[in-house]
């Protein structure tokens, strides 16, 4: 049993806050590292200690292994939680942490290596009888080998980073002419995101659903799955809405995919929490895609329907405790949906929209959970991921979860940046979503129509918006015309500055 008393959180934003909270629930001491951009962030404020590790670019801060391990040593941490992204699936980081005498809260470096190489993982799963998407056996050496694969399997195909994850370094290709530029873009994005420009090709399955199974395994060899999450609503391979359970699965298919996920866990010697991603076609055939060897962004969906605290479970497994459940004791209750609120403008092609948070009101009420580190005054910066909040709604059934989500989306106020909230409102109030009629291509196909609906507003609300803007401008103008006493530099500061200019110390007022 490894004793854990103080956990260093090697991440930022909402996930750092999520782990801080788990530490508090367990009576453990959370410490965080932070870049200059995050020095006044909510996780930094709520942790017991916070250590600056560098300037805003991730490469100089959240990806700096030495700086993070040094912070752990200086603060007396005995474990590291990596969150997701950054170093979460980096086996060198897990190894370096172990060598520094720290418990790494996540899978073993060996399992990370096997699964982190998507090409190797596909080969391993295929050997264990897990169905995989048809694709290249090896990394693509050149454009010609991709072209040959595509001629054999037919278009479209998908180029994927061998070291990939999170939708980075991925490009769909629909004709031979597109291969070269897509190969270039995928390689450079893969290099930038993972430090490895290896890319392979697989058949791009269309009209399929993305369904993933949450698993957790302990050091004693026990493993359970916690059911599925449906993540088909994606844009450019970035998930936008997740839910659990999936309306696409029959009980039989659900049981089969749970078994396949556990087989994947065993075959890779997996430990701790992980996610096995599958595509499911219209004939209800599942295909293994990859394992995300980390806690996932959308883990709250599973927490809401199973009642399991996944971060707590991760920490317990890491300190050597056996799993608290058997497979039979895991039951899903009700339905949960998560909307990823991004600092992107859905009315102009999801363009990143950084800025300062000028106003903030979080939704609340029955069935609502919100995971966010946003505070008024925070600067949403271009240095990091655009995810600013995860809004999760739980209901006794899917309809109730949808209705609660719509209520919460309407209550949610984030001023100062444009967000995907209007997009989520359109999607969740639409007939297709209510009926469960969608697949992984739905967002791209419907985006034009959704965009038009985002534009066409109700006349009364437009009038109200115009009035609110006029009132704001008029308030501004009248403040500007008000006597200058309230604004401008204070007389104290001016007298001090004058004193400095004249080379003497300031004197008391009344001089």
């Amino acid at each position, binding site marked *: 049993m490894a004793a854990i008393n103080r956990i260093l959180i090697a991440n930022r934003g909402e996930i750092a806050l999520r782990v801080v909270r788990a530490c508090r629930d367990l009576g453990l001491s959370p410490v965080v590292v932070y870049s200059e951009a995050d020095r006044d962030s909510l996780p930094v404020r709520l942790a017991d200690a916070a250590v600056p590790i560098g300037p805003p670019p991730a490469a100089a801060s959240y990806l700096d292994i030495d700086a993070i391990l040094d912070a752990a040593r200086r603060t007396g941490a005995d474990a590291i939680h990596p969150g997701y992204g950054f170093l979460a699936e980096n086996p060198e980081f897990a190894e370096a942490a172990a060598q520094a005498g720290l418990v790494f809260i996540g899978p073993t470096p060996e399992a990370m290596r096997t699964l982190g190489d998507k090409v190797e993982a596909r080969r391993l799963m295929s050997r264990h009888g897990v169905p995989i998407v048809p694709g290249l056996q090896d990394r693509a050496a050149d454009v010609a080998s991709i072209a040959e694969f595509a001629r054999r399997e037919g278009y479209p195909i998908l180029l994927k980073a061998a070291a990939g994850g999170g939708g980075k370094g991925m490009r769909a290709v629909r004709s031979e002419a597109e291969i070269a530029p897509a190969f270039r873009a995928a390689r450079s994005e893969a290099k930038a995101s993972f430090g490895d420009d290896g890319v392979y090709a697989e058949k791009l399955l269309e009209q399929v659903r993305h369904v993933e199974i949450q698993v957790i395994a302990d050091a004693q060899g026990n493993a359970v799955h916690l059911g599925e999450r449906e993540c088909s609503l994606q844009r450019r391979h970035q998930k936008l809405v997740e839910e659990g359970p999936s309306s696409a699965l029959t009980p039989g298919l659900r049981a089969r995919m749970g078994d396949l996920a556990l087989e994947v866990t065993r075959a890779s010697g997996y430990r701790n929490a992980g996610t096995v991603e599958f595509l499911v076609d219209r004939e209800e055939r599942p295909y293994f895609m990859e394992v995300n060897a980390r806690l996932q962004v959308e883990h709250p969906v599973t927490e809401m329907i199973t009642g399991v605290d996944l971060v707590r479970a991760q920490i317990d497994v890491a300190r050597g405790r056996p799993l608290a459940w058997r497979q039979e004791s895991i039951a899903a209750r009700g339905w949960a949906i998560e909307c990823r609120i991004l600092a992107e403008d859905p009315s102009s092609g999801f363009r*990143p929209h950084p800025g300062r948070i000028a106003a903030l009101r979080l939704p609340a009420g029955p069935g609502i959970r919100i995971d966010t580190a946003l505070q008024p005054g925070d600067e949403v910066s*271009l240095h990091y991921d655009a995810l600013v909040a995860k809004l999760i709604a739980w209901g006794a059934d899917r309809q109730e979860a949808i209705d609660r989500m719509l209520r919460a989306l309407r209550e949610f106020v984030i001023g100062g940046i*444009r967000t995907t909230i209007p997009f989520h409102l359109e999607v969740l109030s639409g007939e297709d979503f209510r009926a469960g009629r969608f697949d992984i291509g739905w967002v791209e196909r419907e985006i034009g129509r959704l965009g038009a609906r985002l534009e066409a507003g109700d006349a*009364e*609300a*437009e*009038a109200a*918006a115009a009035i*609110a803007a006029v009132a704001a401008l008029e*308030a501004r103008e009248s403040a500007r015309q008000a006597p200058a006493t309230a604004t401008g530099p204070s007389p104290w500061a001016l007298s001090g500055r004058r004193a400095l200019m004249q080379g003497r110390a300031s004197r008391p007022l009344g001089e």
Partner: protein
Amino acid sequence: MADFTARVGDRAFRLAASRRGGVRAVAFEETGRVAEVFGTGAIRRVSIDGRTFEACVVPAGRPAVADRGEARYDVTIGGRLFAVSLADPLRTAADGARAAGADGPAEIRAVMPGKIVEILVGAGAKVAAGQGLVVVEAMKMENEITAPRPGTVGQIKVRSGEAVEAGALLVVLE
């Protein structure tokens, strides 16, 4: 009393703002209806004929009051975004007279801060509408900036690897 023309989507409203005690009143000039605005700060309550709207109003883009006498605001109501532009009719009338024509060189500018990953064209190259000019990385995603219309690439103002601010001139299209 201040007069404004407010544009929201395809609609335009002539509005006159005034103040009665702590409440701001805004009248629709066409109909004479009066709406009231309560509260301070960014999130306010608008009441029109007894119907309530809660509106979050934040200046959009760069300075809210640009030199052309126009102010732009992002207003969110019930989770929906309304981009509002306000103009003082007296000032914008003079402005319209010197509006530039659309045939001159097109300046392709960065729409957000980021890093130039690659320049896809050379000076003098003929490009089609929609053809990629520059690849910019922002928020860890690569975005291709494309030509808005066919033309010939004039000056290229950035280099690969360079960091650019929003609004920075990237390429001039002749």
